[in-house]
């Protein structure tokens, strides 16, 4: 499969704690994206990180990319109940120009 794999599959934390999700992939990529999906809704784009970038920030989100290990992580700091959702990484494969989604991490933030 060309999909990324994410871990953990599920994560439950208290409000205010940090949440870290990891994504591993198999072949060279142009870029990697992270998306959030609330239950029963479409996906919302969070961050795009290119293969020549190592870290990117957006508000409470921090994404890192290690191309030597073919892995990425998404850190959500000071989590809120509203962050409860599934989080997916999506990778394009160089020259394929299409995205394939990982299996996702289901995050539950308890108030």
């Amino acid at each position, binding site marked *: 499969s060309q*999909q990324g794999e994410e871990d953990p599959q599920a994560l439950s934390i208290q409000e205010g704690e940090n949440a870290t999700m990891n994504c591993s992939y198999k072949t060279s990529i*142009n*870029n990697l*994206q992270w*998306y959030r999906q609330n239950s*029963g*809704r*479409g*996906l*919302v*784009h969070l961050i*795009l990180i*290119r293969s020549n970038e190592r870290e990117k920030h957006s508000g409470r989100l921090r994404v890192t990319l290690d191309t030597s290990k073919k892995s990425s992580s998404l850190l959500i700091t000071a989590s809120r109940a509203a962050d409860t959702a599934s989080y*997916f990484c*999506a990778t*394009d494969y160089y020259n394929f*120009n*299409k*995205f*394939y*989604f*990982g*299996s*996702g991490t*289901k995050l539950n933030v308890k108030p």
Partner: protein
Amino acid sequence: DAMVIQNPRYQVTQFGKPVTLSCSQTLNHNVMYWYQQKSSQAPKLLFHYYDKDFNNEADTPDNFQSRRPNTSFCFLDIRSPGLGDAAMYLCATSSSLGNQPQHFGDGTRLSIL
């Protein structure tokens, strides 16, 4: 606000009865995608259009077809739905292939009786 709209949000059809799902966009994006997402799974790419060029994924069943009559609209046709086709169907757009974010609609949840 510019957006991607999918209609209907919920669709019920009978086993074997053709069904069409629709997607419209006001973003004027060149690329439109259709994904199938089953419960607790990753979205699976079925096909995409780059302008009028249609690109089918190798493992997309022949039962699934798509039409894009103009930039704004794209349709997913399921010719003879089986029970295994019950899923959420997501439409997405992007301004170009590869290194651009995708913008998703809220999906159509398809049930098969």
